[in-house]
């Protein structure tokens, strides 16, 4: 059963989780950091601790920057449990997790959920075929194992798509094509959000695009009606470009349509969430110190709102400071003083984020998949099925779940929840907030019955 309460338990070892842990431990709190990966860093700095400079060199300085946090974390008193999968958090801040095939529980005074982001589901016909993966997945292969795709097509939009393209080109990969779904409407919208300061990351982004051009990589802008071809595995992609159907051959298609907060734990706790129209996804509702609708549950980083690694790092610090003050480890004055710098940094970077959100907003077709497109990958429920359930009277995702098993598979809606909400909103002419999202139940990640049974006293 749960041992004595730890002051702060942090779930997730990415930038937000690491900085929260470092900050909390430096002010005398007992801290446990639970993370699924074998080493700290999250997905963004994944593989960085492996110390393979040949790969780190390819990934660039933004990636190498993470070493600072990883090293700092290693010097703290934080109890860092790696290869640890959290599958339940309850409203009393008791966390249940698996490590080495053994279930354990830990009680916290305050839990900081720092589970980061997931890539936005981008359902197009054929996206379940072997050979189709997310652009992030290809990047993880590069970061962790130095494995690269041969002649891939990258399709969709969002900063990560260009980053991955650039990194693959840097690794000597010949990219078959970049199929960009960004529209000129996005450019107009984004122009209004143009950040006056902090051009640094923007210049980096531009250099990625330039590299795509310089290497004469085929680049199709404003593509629509994307469709992956192939029977047993992917063998190409088809799309509309400038009024013509373009058909390309490739057995590796990398999709990307931006990232969204991973809200599985916050949903399982039934915390308040709200629709964020610029980022086109749900955010858990938090106050300025990361406090959710439950006092003892805090959310930091991209799991709260998409901001990227640097914002997440600052937000982790701020969330830790809020928790430290509530636990009376520091005074409110100290909290406010220490929060001033990270808050200012977030404020500055937020302007760039708004610009990126507007520029790389997913195209209309992403939320309006064709009837034959699989939406729920686990249970193979199509967009047409969901539309039929709407006609039978389903107003919300939990009803479609009962009607067609949509979202009932092992991923528990991670790659269909958002699309189901969008389809139901369109079919029933409701807002996304009115439609809502799946109710998530534990285990948020599957666990064997014998492990669960071991917790029976």
């Amino acid at each position: 059963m749960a041992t004595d309460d730890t002051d702060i338990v942090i779930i997730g070892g990415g930038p937000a989780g690491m900085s929260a842990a470092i900050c909390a431990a430096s002010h005398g709190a007992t801290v446990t950091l639970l993370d699924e990966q074998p080493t700290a860093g999250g997905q963004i700095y994944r593989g960085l601790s492996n110390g393979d400079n040949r790969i780190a060199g390819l990934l660039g300085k933004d990636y190498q920057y993470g070493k600072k946090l990883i090293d700092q974390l290693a010097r703290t008193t934080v109890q860092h449990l790696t290869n640890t999968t959290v599958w339940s958090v309850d409203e009393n801040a008791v966390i249940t997790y698996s490590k080495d095939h053994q279930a354990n529980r830990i009680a916290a005074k305050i839990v900081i959920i720092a589970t980061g982001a997931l890539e936005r589901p981008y359902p197009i016909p054929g996206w379940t075929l072997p050979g189709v993966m997310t652009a992030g997945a290809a990047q993880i292969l590069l970061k962790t194992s130095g494995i690269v795709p041969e002649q891939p097509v990258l399709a969709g939009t969002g900063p990560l798509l260009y980053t991955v393209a650039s990194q693959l080109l840097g690794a000597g990969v010949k990219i078959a094509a970049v199929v960009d779904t960004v529209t000129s409407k996005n450019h107009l919208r984004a122009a209004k959000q143009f950040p006056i300061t902090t051009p640094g990351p923007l210049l980096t982004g531009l250099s990625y695009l330039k590299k795509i051009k310089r290497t004469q990589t085929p680049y199709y802008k404003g593509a629509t009606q994307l469709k992956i071809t192939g029977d047993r595995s992917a063998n190409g992609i088809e799309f509309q470009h400038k009024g013509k159907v373009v058909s390309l051959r490739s057995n590796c298609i990398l999709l990307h349509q931006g990232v969204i907060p991973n809200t599985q734990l916050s949903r399982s706790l039934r915390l308040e969430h709200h629709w964020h129209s610029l980022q086109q996804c749900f955010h858990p509702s938090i106050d300025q110190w990361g406090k959710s609708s439950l006092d003892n549950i805090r959310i930091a980083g991209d799991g709260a709102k998409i901001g990227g690694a640097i914002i997440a790092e600052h937000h982790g610090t701020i969330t830790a400071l809020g928790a430290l003050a509530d636990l009376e480890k520091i005074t409110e004055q100290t909290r406010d003083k220490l929060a001033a710098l990270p808050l200012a940094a977030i404020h500055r970077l937020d302007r760039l984020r708004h610009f990126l959100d507007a520029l790389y907003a997913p195209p209309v077709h992403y939320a309006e998949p064709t009837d034959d497109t699989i939406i729920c990958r686990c249970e193979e429920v199509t967009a047409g099925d969901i539309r039929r359930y709407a006609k039978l009277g389903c107003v919300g995702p939990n009803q479609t779940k009962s009607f067609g098993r949509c979202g009932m598979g092992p991923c528990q809606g991670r790659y269909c929840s958002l699309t189901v909400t969008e389809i139901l909103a369109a079919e029933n002419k409701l807002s996304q907030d009115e439609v809502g999202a799946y109710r998530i139940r534990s285990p948020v990640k599957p666990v064997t019955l014998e492990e669960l049974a071991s917790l029976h006293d």
Partner: protein
Amino acid sequence: MFKRLHDDNTFVFTFDGTDIQACKGETVAAALFANGIAALRKTHTSSSQRGPFCMMGACYDCLVEVDGKTVQSCMLPAQPGLQVNRAKAQDE
């Protein structure tokens, strides 16, 4: 479809009885990709082929069977001598 930039510290595990060469630090999913294997299982509902999609433990498309348990190959470190099998579909 995938290749390794560097081939160091190689060892062997098995996938459905076939030897698979892996490098230190690779997950089972990564090693299978490097060996040209992208399709790992068939779905229960329609018996369609699936392979790794997210590589970060979120999508559950890369499921394989080890020691009688269904596990995510993208979260499973490859190890010398590890015996990995295709996960059985309902009709198998």
